[in-house]
């Protein structure tokens, strides 16, 4: 199949949905001529005009409000927050408005909006441009949270998010934009609420998100050389979270490691661990479920410190080995 980068896959999803549905429009900072800080919207303004690819002033609350207000009046906005860190500036519109309007209004309104949020560390952008805050939104009923790790998932999930009648927080990863993979040319959607077993294995279950899925797969290959077969599962959508493949896997392996880039404390890993413990898999655990996550610290500028602030392949290999060998 034809290969695209993660960035190109996202571009294609935007392009195709704009072509197909005139209710879809884009709004964000420097998404027009500039094509977006990470080039995702590229030439879409040339294609669809300034009314459908709207360059915003630096007003993040306004961008979110533009999405909420247009969504409740029949449009299907796709907003971009240049760096996911700056979502801190539109929390009111997302948490108190987008997430709650439908419920507050007795189920009589809907807010079909998507907010694209490029996140993660590893680019030397330091503490204010490298955050991972996805679990905040997992904790906000009314919102859905999507976090693709491959070009294929990126396109299928973005199209699904745009088609969804609920507000969707769409977390992209800066380090993944250049990664390549097979992507069908036609429009297709992936279900929001289905975890994906990306690698099968019998010895241990690794649940990872976004860039950590890629690192976990690399780690799994290294572990295989040692005779350890890891099963790697990518939830792809953090809320709703599909636990079924995860519990099934753990019933088989008896061991689980949860990996994400966001800081460990208060993060998504805790949710996954708690769900595992609450599931039938608990009875099959022959080791404690472990979390491997970002250090509890702001992202440092220094390259070496930054590298060590997030789980890398070697850390996943080591943690998984320890788990399998029963040393922790």
């Amino acid at each position, binding site marked *: 199949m034809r290969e695209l980068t993660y960035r190109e896959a996202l571009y294609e999803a935007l392009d195709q949905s704009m072509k197909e549905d005139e209710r879809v429009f884009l709004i964000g900072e420097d998404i027009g001529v500039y094509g977006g800080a990470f080039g995702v919207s590229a030439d879409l303004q040339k294609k669809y005009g300034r009314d459908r690819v709207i360059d915003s002033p630096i007003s993040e609350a306004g961008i979110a409000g*533009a999405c909420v207000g247009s969504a409740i009046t029949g449009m299907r906005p796709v907003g971009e927050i240049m760096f996911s860190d700056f979502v801190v500036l539109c929390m009111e519109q997302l948490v108190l408005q987008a997430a709650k309007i439908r*419920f507050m209004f007795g189920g*009589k*309104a809907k807010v079909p909006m998507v907010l694209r949020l490029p996140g993660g560390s590893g680019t030397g952008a330091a503490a204010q441009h490298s955050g991972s805050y996805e679990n905040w939104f997992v904790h906000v009923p009314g919102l859905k949270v999507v976090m693709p790790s491959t070009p294929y998932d990126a396109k299928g999930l973005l199209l699904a998010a745009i088609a969804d009648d609920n507000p969707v927080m769409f977390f992209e990863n800066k380090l993944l934009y250049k990664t390549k993979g097979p992507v069908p040319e036609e429009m297709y959607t992936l279900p929001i609420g289905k975890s994906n077993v990306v690698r099968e294995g019998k010895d241990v279950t690794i649940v990872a998100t976004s860039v950590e899925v890629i690192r976990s797969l690399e780690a799994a290959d290294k572990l295989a050389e040692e005779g350890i077969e890891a099963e790697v599962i990518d939830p792809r959508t953090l809320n709703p979270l599909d636990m079924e493949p995860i519990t099934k896997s753990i019933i088989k392996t008896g061991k689980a490691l949860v990996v994400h880039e966001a800081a460990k404390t208060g993060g998504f890993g805790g949710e996954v661990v708690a769900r595992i413990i609450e599931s039938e898999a608990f009875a099959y655990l022959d080791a404690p479920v472990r979390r491997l996550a970002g250090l509890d610290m702001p992202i440092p500028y220094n390259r070496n410190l930054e590298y060590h602030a997030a789980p890398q392949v070697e850390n996943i290999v080591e943690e998984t080995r320890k788990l399998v060998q029963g040393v922790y």
Partner: protein
Amino acid sequence: MEKEKLIEGVYTPEEARHLLYIMILTRAFEENAEEMYALGKVHGTMHLSIGQEAIPVGASSAITRDDYLLNTHRGHGHFLAWGGDLKHMMAEFLGKETGYCRGRGGSMHIADVDSNNLGANGVVAGNLPISVGVGLSIKIRKTKQVALTLFGDGAANEGAFHEALNMASIWNLPIIYLCENNQYAMSTPFDYAFKIEEISSRAGSYGIKGVTVDGNDVFAVNKAVRDAANRARKGNGPTLIEAITYRWRGHSKSDRQAYRTREEVKEWMKKDPIPRFAAKIGVTDKEMEKIKQQVKQDIQAAVEYAENSPEPDLSTILEGVYA
């Protein structure tokens, strides 16, 4: 119809009487709400607009029901002026399943999206960023609608006010920003929170038209909103209207009002917009009595309807969280 038949060139006698009825109804609704609250029939809090009844009728009568309304926490009057049904409104107030929001929203979140009433908002300035989206939606869909967006004086110091008005300006969005300056944000006096004479002067920061009007004069509010609507429909963008008025009651149910004097309140009560409008449209005391009787019956009927309405069923508690 011909202009001379219209009161002040604006309303037919029927229309004017209806607006007066809405003003009286609003006040009665809120006085009744106070009683019910005192009797423990409603919980939570509520924000009464008694003394500010001219703005809703003046504004809503200046645009059509194809337009949009974005309301505030102090929005009972706007809800009724927009055409809200008293029974379902009362039911919402009592948290009943028959309420506009199935009892989930209450006074602070009452909405009726089907009639383009996009709801009250419990967040100060919460509807301002949303107005930008409504304006964009209108612009993209090329319907000639306008979005009437209410907010208070206090809301004008939120960052959201700034971002929204600038965006509305640079994109020429058809939005009418109507600031109800009732002199206080909770306990905070206007002249403490602002170092300017008129909030409408902030229009200058966005290169849009700003105007300050007597918020207790239905005709003044109506004219300002009509002019703004004309500009908006012509593609000339938003307008910032400041309507000067006064809140007679406390901010909410837990307000001792230590921040103002009884005299000040008394002074403003002399400027009651209801008799003022009644006089202007030539309604006699006798007719006035008739309207009040009508209002009384309507309120009673609504209370009965609401009280006899069912509570939401517990089994439906999660309905409406997701579509």
